[in-house]
Structure formats: C-alpha cells, structure tokens
C-alpha cells in the first residue's frame, strides 16, 4: 500500500508542519493560507484513505533509531513537561499523576523491556479509523479555518500585549495530527503517546486566555486526563506483563478475543483502557473538565467536542468493544454510559449558558455512544458509529454558530439570544438545523438513538435510562431554540453579513449535517457496515444494518420525511404572504400601548412596561452544584463497580 503509507504520514506530519509554520510565521495572512491549504490537503488525504480502504503500515527507522525508541523518548519528554507544569502551578495532583505515569512507563520500558518489543504493524488503518480520520480531517479542518478569523476577532475584543494568535493556531492545528496518529495507531504504546499529546494540547488550548479561571480549568483538564493516562499506562503494563508483547497490538487483541470475551488480567487491562476512555470522554464523574474547558475560545470547544479529544475516548472504548463482549464489564459500561446520558441531560436543563448546554449535551451523547459500545451487539455498535459521525458534525456546527453569535451580540447566554431569528436570521437558521439535527427525525443522530434504544431492549436497566434521557433531551434543546425564534409581530429581519471564514465553516458543516442525513443509507452501507463487520461475525447482521439504512422493512426511510420538511418550508411561503397577512400586536389583555414595539403595554399609573420573557431553568430544584455532587457520587460508584465486576 504505497499511497496509503504517504496518506498516513501526511495526515500526521502535515499538521505538525503547518502548526510550526503558523507559530513561526506570525502573520494573519499566512495563518489564513496555511489553515485553508492544510484543511484541503487533509480532507483530500482522508478521502484518499476512504477510497483506498484498510491497510497496515510499518514505518521504517529514523536516523538509525527505531521509531519505537523515538516515541519512548518523546513520551518521557512530554511527562517531564507535564511534571514541570505541575510544579510551576503548584498542582499536587498533576505532579503525582505524571509521576505515576512516569514510573509505569519506566516499569514498562525497562522493567519489562517494552521499548524493545515492537508489535507489527505500528499503524493499522481499518474502517473505523478511516471514519474517524474523515471526521477529524474534514470537521477539524473546518474548525481550524473558522479559528483563524475567530481568534483574530477574539483578540480585538480582549486585547493582549503580545498576540497569542500564532500560539493558538499552533496548538489547534497540531491537535489534528495527534488525533490522526491516535486513530491510526495499532501499537497501543504509540496510541498512548498520541493520547498524551492530545491531553497536552487541550491543556494548552483551554488555558489560552491565561486568566486565573482559564489556568485553573486547564489544570483540572490536565489532571483528570492524566488520571486516564495513568490508567492507560497501567493497562499497558498489565497487558505486557500478563499477555506478552503481542497484546500490545490492537489487531492482535481484537482478533484474539472476538469469539469469546477476554478474561482475567487481560480483561482488567481492558477495563483500565475503558476507564481511560471514560476520563477522556468526560463521563461522570469526570465531566467537570469538559465543562471547565468552556472558558476557552469557542473554536477550542468546537474542536474538543466534535472531532477530537472526547471522540478519542469513545473511539478507544468502541475499538475494544469486541474484546469485552459478553462480559459483565460490557453490561456495566452500558449502564454507566446510559446513566451519564440521563444525568448530563437533566443537568443541561438548568443551564442558561449556551456553551454549557452544549457541553452537557456532549457529555450526554458520549454517554449514549459508550452505552451502545457496552450493549455490544452489531446493531448497537453501528448505532455508536452513526452517532459519532453525526454528533461530530452537528456539535461542531452548534459550537461554531454559538461562537459566531457570541461575537455578534456579545453574549453566550441563551436569554440574550432572544429574537435572534430577526436579528441574525442566517445564524438562527443554522441553529435551527443544528438543533433539530441533534435529536429529531429524520436526522442521523435520531437514527443512531433509535437503533440504540432498539438494541438496548436486551439490557433493561440501560434501556430504561436511555428512555428517560431521550425524553429529557427534547426539553433543553427546544426551549433554547424557542428563545431564538421569538419575534415581534411584523418585525422585519435584519440583513446579516458573515465573514468568509464563517461562511465556509458554518456552511460546510450545515451542508454536511443535512446531506449526510439524507444519504444516511449510503453512509451506513459504505462506512459503518464494513467497520462493524470487520470484528463482528454474526448471521443476520447484514439484514440488521439494512434495517437501519433503509428503514424498518423499507417502511421507514428518511427520504419521505425530508421531502415533507422541504414541503413545509415551501408551503409556509404560500400560506404566509407578508403583503396579505396582517400582523396585529400580541394579545396583552388589550393593554397594548400602541407603540411601534407591539409588546409595550400600559401598567399602573400610565407607566409603560415591556413584555419580559424567559425560559424555565428549574434552578430551585435542579441546583447544578448539588445535583453534580449527587450524580458524581453515583458515577464514581459506577466506575468502581465497573472495575469491580472485572476483578470478580
């Protein structure tokens, strides 16, 4: 696979080169060109990978050294850097966790001779990795293009002595390279390295603004992910000690344990990797790092939530799913994921900060994906992959749109977004599509959720949690959307001028959200089904997946609903013709003051009042701090149970 090899190399090294160029070049126009060019090349690379299909790739040597040694050295360097940061911030947890990781690595490298063992191949690009690569390189690149403009505006609004834009773009773009490495890696030791790089990148990006809050939250992200890193390292040590060198190869692990689930020490190691995935995917009780990450500029949030970082966690858990199929670990993972889905959805109701709503929704949806991995039937796994794809697109879109709106109106509060449909009609339309695509038919997320609930019927407790959560999600999405759509009778929508960066990224993602959903059949058949069938061999599977693709027995297909939605949009134009329809003021018990603002009314003593509206947040009952404590405890118990059932 001569081309495949280059594609992998380009996907990993091009972002590194581009990032360095941004950092050293220091000019806006350079960053601009670099981000567009990198984006296009990476997208082409990903498409090339998709067309070439799966392959393995073993890189040669570098300056006479094996790559394994280089990675090993880089690992230690990175840990030293993290230790230094921990020491500078006087953050005990970071120091301790980094030290533990270092000790485990020393144990791995020198005690067990791990650095000598090099499972072949180092990279295995399979169907799932290709899907991830497409997401990272297309959605991620669009976010980087958006980021160039956004961070420039951000610095206009929050001036700093020395521009931090080059630094910002450096970390943003290099993130893509690390993620590409992570998804392609077959050697778990290499994957661990890329894992740590993404942790470090996110630390740098979250702390970008250098405020006390930003640094504090960045440190929290670092220690929580270091905990995951330590679990990952421990998993590696156990695998090497009790399994042997072969077990460091993901492919070996998968092929060896597909028929029957893993047992004993290997399962323990797998549970450690699952725990690592859960910290990275911000599952309860680790959700606070992702919520804290909201202090970062919006492109960072978009990147962390949609195509990178948190997706690394679910990717690992999903990759390992065949290994722990049929074990208690699997059921427990499903229940923990489903519980996170419910708890995070409920907490989202109480939030009026748009980014926090999105963050909770991310935590919730990742919980759903992990629940699917835990349910561990072929249908559930395909549901999980479908959810990963569509969540990346829709969530990226929603974050970018929130960032755009924040720069336009100066607030990320949902209440401040009221009447957006008349103030920023394009943004409101994008929001409408984005929000509907998150949880309603006929969009991809719903198809995934549907398949998830159908397959969860095997596992009653998980199914029950999913059902409750699914009902709760509608509440926080619709009340947010409702605020934006609100308008005074007869108000004329303002003209909206959008920067080309924003048009490219928002337009691209909106188109992707709609088109992918319309063509979900081909998407499932050409991408998801191969990714599932490579590790699951069960009769009737094809028929099952056909069901998702074409609808149940051909009766439910997404096409008719999309046609109906288009019909509604067109017919509404005929039903409501502005010249023919009168727009009287709203009903205010007849007390309208008769001003052009039709929502001003007369109060006592000939004073005037204006209608004030606000969403329900139930803050009295749904106190975020109190409930977070409660659900964190439950989450912690779930994690302990998860490890407990493994040992048992």
């Amino acid at each position, binding site marked *: 696979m001569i081309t495949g090899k280059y594609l992998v190399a380009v996907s990993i090294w091009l972002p590194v080169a581009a990032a360095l160029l941004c950092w050293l070049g220091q000019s806006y126009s350079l960053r601009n060109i670099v981000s567009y060019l990198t984006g296009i090349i990476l997208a082409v690379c990903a498409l090339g990978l998709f067309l070439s299909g799966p392959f393995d790739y073993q890189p040669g040597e570098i300056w006479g050294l094996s790559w394994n040694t280089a990675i090993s050295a880089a690992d230690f360097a990175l840990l030293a850097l993290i230790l230094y940061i921990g020491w500078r911030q006087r953050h005990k947890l970071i120091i301790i966790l980094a030290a533990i990781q270092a000790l485990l690595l020393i144990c791995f490298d020198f005690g067990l001779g791990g650095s000598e063992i090099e499972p072949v191949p180092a990279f295995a690009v399979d169907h799932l990795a290709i899907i991830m690569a497409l997401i990272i390189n297309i959605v991620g690149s669009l976010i980087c293009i958006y980021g160039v403009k956004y961070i420039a505006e951000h610095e206009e609004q929050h001036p700093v002595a020395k521009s931090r834009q080059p630094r910002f773009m450096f970390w943003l773009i290099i993130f893509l390279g690390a993620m590409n490495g992570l998804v392609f890696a077959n050697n778990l030791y290499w994957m661990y390295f890329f894992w740590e790089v993404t942790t470090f990148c996110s630390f740098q990006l979250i702390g970008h603004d250098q405020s006390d809050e930003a640094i504090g939250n960045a440190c929290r992200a670092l220690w929580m992910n270091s905990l995951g890193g330590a679990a990952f390292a421990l998993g590696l040590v156990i695998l090497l000690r009790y399994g042997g060198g072969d077990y460091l190869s993901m492919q070996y692990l998968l092929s060896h344990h597909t028929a029957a689930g893993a047992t004993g020490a290997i399962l323990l190691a797998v549970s450690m990797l699952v725990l690592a995935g859960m910290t990275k995917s911000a599952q309860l009780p680790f959700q606070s790092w992702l919520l804290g990450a909201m202090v970062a500029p919006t492109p960072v949030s978009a990147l962390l939530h949609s195509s990178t970082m948190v997706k690394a966690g679910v990717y690992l858990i999903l990759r390992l799913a065949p290994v722990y199929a049929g074990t208690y670990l699997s059921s427990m993972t499903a229940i923990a994921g489903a519980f996170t889905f419910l708890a995070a959805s409920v907490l989202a109701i109480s939030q009026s900060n748009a980014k926090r709503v999105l963050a909770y929704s991310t935590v919730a949806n990742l919980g759903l994906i992990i629940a699917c991995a835990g349910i561990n039937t072929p249908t559930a796994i395909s549901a999980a992959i479908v959810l990963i794809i569509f969540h990346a697109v829709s969530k990226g879109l929603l974050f970018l749109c929130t960032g755009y709106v924040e720069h336009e109106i100066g607030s990320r509060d949902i209440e401040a977004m009221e009447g957006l449909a008349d103030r920023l009609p394009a943004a409101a339309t994008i929001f409408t599509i984005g929000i509907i695509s998150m949880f309603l038919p006929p969009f991809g997320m719903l198809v995934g959720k549907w398949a998830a609930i159908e397959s969860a019927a095997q596992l009653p407790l998980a199914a029950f949690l999913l059902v409750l959560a699914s009902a709760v999600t509608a509440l926080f999405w619709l009340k947010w959307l409702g605020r934006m759509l609100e308008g005074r009778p007869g108000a004329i929508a303002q003209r909206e001028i959008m920067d080309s960066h924003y048009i490219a990224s928002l337009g691209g993602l909106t188109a992707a959200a709609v088109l992918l959903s319309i063509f979900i059949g081909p998407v499932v058949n050409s991408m998801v089904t191969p990714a599932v069938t490579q590790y699951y061999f069960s009769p009737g599977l094809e028929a099952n997946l056909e069901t998702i693709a074409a609808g149940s027995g051909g009766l439910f297909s997404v096409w008719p609903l999309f046609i109906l939605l288009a019909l509604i949009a067109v017919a509404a134009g005929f039903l409501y013709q502005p010249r023919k329809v009168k727009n*009287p*003021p709203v*009903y205010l*018990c*007849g*007390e*309208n003051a*008769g001003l052009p603002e039709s929502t001003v009314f*007369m109060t006592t003593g000939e004073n005037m009042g204006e209608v004030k509206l606000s969403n329900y947040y139930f803050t009295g009952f749904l106190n975020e701090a109190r409930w977070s404590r409660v659900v964190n405890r439950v989450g912690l118990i779930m994690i302990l149970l998860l490890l407990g059932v493994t040992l048992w």
Partner: protein
Amino acid sequence: MELINKSRVKSPWLLHYDGSSCNGCDIEVLACLTPIYDVERFGIINTGNPKHADILLITGGVNKKAARVVKNLYEQMPEPKVVVAVGVCACSGGVFHDCYNILGGIDRVIPVDVYVPGCAARPEAIIDGVVRALQVLAAKTDKEAVV
C-alpha cells in the same frame, strides 16, 4: 364559500369585555353559559381571546382608561367581526352617562352592531342579541370580500 358562510353563523366565538360595568350584566352573561340557557347549543364559545373571537360582547359604559383597551381588542379581532353592547350602560352610558370618567356608550369608541338594553340585560335578551349579531355577521360577509 357557501359552506363557510353557513358555518360562520353556526360557530360564533365571543369575547366578553367588561368596560366599567357594575357586574350585574356580567353575571347575566355568565348565566348564559349555564345549563339553563346553554348557549353552546348555538355553537357559542366564550374564548377570552380577541384573536379567536367573532363577536365582541361588551358590558358597562366606556371610561377613559378602558377606551384604549376596547379599541385594542377590537383591532386584534380578525374580520369579519361584530360588536354587541350588553346593558343600558354599554348602549348609552346609562345612569353613569354624565359621570366624570365615563365617555358614554361603546359606540363612542368602536362601531356597535347590536344594542341589548336592560339593567341588567336578561339572559334571554343577551342570547337574542347575539343571534341578531349573527344575522349582521352573515350580512357583513355577503358584502365584504373575505381573505
């Protein structure tokens, strides 16, 4: 079209507004809804919302403060619509006609189609007034082009 015009007469939804009544007529209006008089027989519903109403039924004279409200309510009703003034105060101001704050009958503010006198107007009279209003409504629709 014919069907719609017929239905109009069979489905009068009304909005009841109390201008500055002594509540005597209001009690009688409410009495119409009770089992004894049961105006729902005629398809009449008390909507409480001008945007759904066909008939604006007003009791009591109009005072200076209520004038704006009456106008607003009338304007917020979709065409075709009729106005019924119930009780002598609504018709002419009644015993309050020269009161310092009273402008007079409803017709000082908006056009009235049917006057139902009485102090208080009896339920039978109110029902009769509404039924007459329906004839006005039918006549109006014959004349006006309807969107």
